[in-house]
């Protein structure tokens, strides 16, 4: 029997039981759609996060945080990604603000280093409305502007290079939280910065009046170490006074180049100098960590989705066995007419290939639609933080993988019924009522 004839024969058998075939196919559709939707969203999320991170984390900077295992550490206060990184640490010696001069001397590859003190508190505008502020950041404005010359840039007002204690610079989303023009604070406004001092008992709210000298341009991204849209920047000396500490939450090291060799040797020099009591985070390290996390997540989600495909496969097997029993006599006729056993096998396998193919194609399409709908909902609802917009990505690997997987599962589960059909003895099959 010729291949097109096998195909049209199989197709005629599927057409005969339309509803049954549709339901069997639906199983494959659901499985494939789940896989495609989850993987394309995960991939889109990975690209978004990596992209955001790249904006906040310059490739030629290192971040030193206290604690020996910051990248694997638990969450800390301070909020956001930066807080999480800064929080961990099993063995930890404090980093002091004045360590920067020693760090500068460690390697010729270091351009400059700057200390950051970061606390959370409240910001009260001139109308006496207050908002929680996760990142009140004490930093040397001049150095910071040098290190982040593209992002620490004023949109209105100007960043003072010799700030007075009351000067403050705020991120775009501090001024315009919803980015819709409804301003909470603006440049040249007098505001109050409130911090709950938890180093004394009972805790006490401390307040000082500050003057917004600049609102930054919109940056996007997480701003690990680097400027962020939600940051409130105060001069380092004021932060030391106000928070009553000279312990830095992180020290940012600006390098001469973003070469992997430079990053590695400088990182090692710093950790060695501090006797492994600090962690040095580089953009590349964070990216490789993220990519590890995402491949694990993809595998996990893909695995869950694959279970639904497995269920679909069992459905196919079930329906094929029913079909083979119903068609026992037909198989007997075909064999009496001279059809070989292997052709009977091909006919049944082709039926499963058709179901798998149709299911996979519809599944990929609906998975893609689903991914876009989910991305839209997440983007609009701001569930992950409205800084993120996810664009689902359907890579060729996922596309062809899903196609192959859909067909493969169908064929594997149809193999046994098809084999049984092919082994039917013509005499017995013809006698079957």
């Amino acid at each position, binding site marked *: 029997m*010729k291949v097109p004839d096998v195909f049209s*024969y199989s197709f005629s058998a599927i057409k005969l039981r339309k509803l049954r075939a549709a339901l069997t196919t639906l199983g494959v559709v659901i499985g494939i759609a789940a896989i495609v939707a989850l993987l394309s969203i995960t991939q889109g999320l990975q690209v978004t996060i990596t992209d955001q991170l790249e904006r906040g984390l310059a490739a030629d900077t290192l971040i030193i945080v206290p604690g020996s295992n910051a990248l694997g550490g638990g969450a800390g206060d301070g909020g956001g990604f930066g807080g999480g990184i800064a929080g961990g640490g099993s063995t930890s010696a404090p980093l002091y603000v004045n360590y920067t001069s020693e760090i500068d001397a460690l390697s010729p590859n270091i351009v400059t280093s700057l200390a950051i003190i970061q606390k959370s508190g409240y910001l009260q505008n001139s109308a006496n409305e207050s908002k929680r502020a996760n990142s009140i950041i004490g930093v040397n404005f001049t150095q910071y502007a040098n290190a982040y010359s593209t992002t620490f840039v004023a949109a209105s007002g100007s960043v003072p290079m010799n700030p007075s204690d009351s000067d403050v610079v705020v991120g775009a989303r501090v001024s315009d939280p919803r980015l819709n023009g409804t301003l909470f604070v603006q440049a040249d406004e007098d505001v109050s910065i409130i911090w709950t001092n938890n180093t004394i008992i009972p805790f006490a709210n401390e307040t000082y009046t500050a003057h917004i000298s600049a609102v930054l341009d919109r940056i996007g991204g997480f701003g690990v170490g680097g400027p962020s849209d939600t940051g409130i920047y105060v001069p380092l000396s004021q932060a030391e006074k106000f928070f009553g500490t000279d312990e830095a939450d992180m020290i940012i090291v600006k390098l001469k180049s973003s070469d992997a060799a430079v990053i590695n040797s400088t990182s090692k020099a710093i950790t060695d100098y501090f006797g492994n009591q600090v962690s040095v985070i580089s953009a590349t390290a964070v990216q490789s960590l993220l990519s590890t996390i995402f491949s694990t997540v993809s595998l996990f989600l893909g695995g869950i989705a694959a279970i639904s495909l497995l269920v679909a496969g069992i459905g196919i097997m079930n329906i094929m066995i029913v079909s083979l029993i119903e068609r026992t006599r037909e198989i007997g*006729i075909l*064999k009496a*007419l*001279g*059809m*070989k056993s292997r052709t009977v096998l091909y006919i049944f396998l082709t039926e499963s290939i058709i179901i798998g193919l149709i299911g996979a194609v519809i599944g990929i399409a609906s998975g893609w639609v689903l991914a876009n709908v989910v991305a839209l909902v997440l983007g609009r609802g701001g569930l992950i933080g409205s800084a993120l917009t996810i664009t689902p990505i359907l890579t060729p690997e996922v596309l062809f993988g899903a196609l192959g997987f859909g067909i493969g599962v169908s064929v594997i589960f149809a193999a046994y019924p098809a084999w049984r059909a092919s082994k039917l003895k013509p005499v017995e099959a*013809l006698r079957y009522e």
Partner: protein
Amino acid sequence: MATVVEAVNLKKTYMLGKIPVEALRGVNLKVEKGDFLAILGPSGSGKSTLLNLIGALDKPTAGKLSIDDVDVSTLNDNQLADLRLRIGFVFQFFNLIPRFTAKYNVELSMSIKGRNKAERQKRAEELLGTVGLKERINHKPAELSGGQQQRVAIARALANDPRFLLMDEPTGNIDSKTAEEVMSLVKKINEKGVTIIMVTHDQRLASEAKRTVHMIDGVITSDMVN
């Protein structure tokens, strides 16, 4: 004359549970080209078993069976299937495939042989014309009477130019008037030179053949020319 089927001391034993049943106990038979043979016997005489063997649907337990000069006992399943392409089956219950039209049912046996579509369609139309169903080629079996279905089955059996037609109670499931029509068609086909072997328990039907063999209890008891 060429020999189409030759059976020498043919035996077939079935296992019915644990009890062996000797369905054929030494059958000797020779069918020449152009013959029209009726195998007549009551149920349980072994005629269906003989039909299955001659149809290359099953293999003998002992003895020798040659179909178209091929010794059946040496063949594997694939070779048996190939041999069946040279045999035209006509069954009591027609055994058409319900979802296909008359035309495609006839085409099917040619499709199995691997003949191309245009050739198949032309031949199917011709054959259905020959059996008098020119107007009903696009009807499905359910839309045809028993006699018409059997004529489609005969057309299908003839499609691959078989060495012989093997008929199992071809009129067993149709009324007597239609049966006569079918039998005159069968005779006409035989007159054109097609060898026919027909299994039946109906004496009257057997008398239509050129030659009748009687079977009782797994052996041939008589062999006579009508």
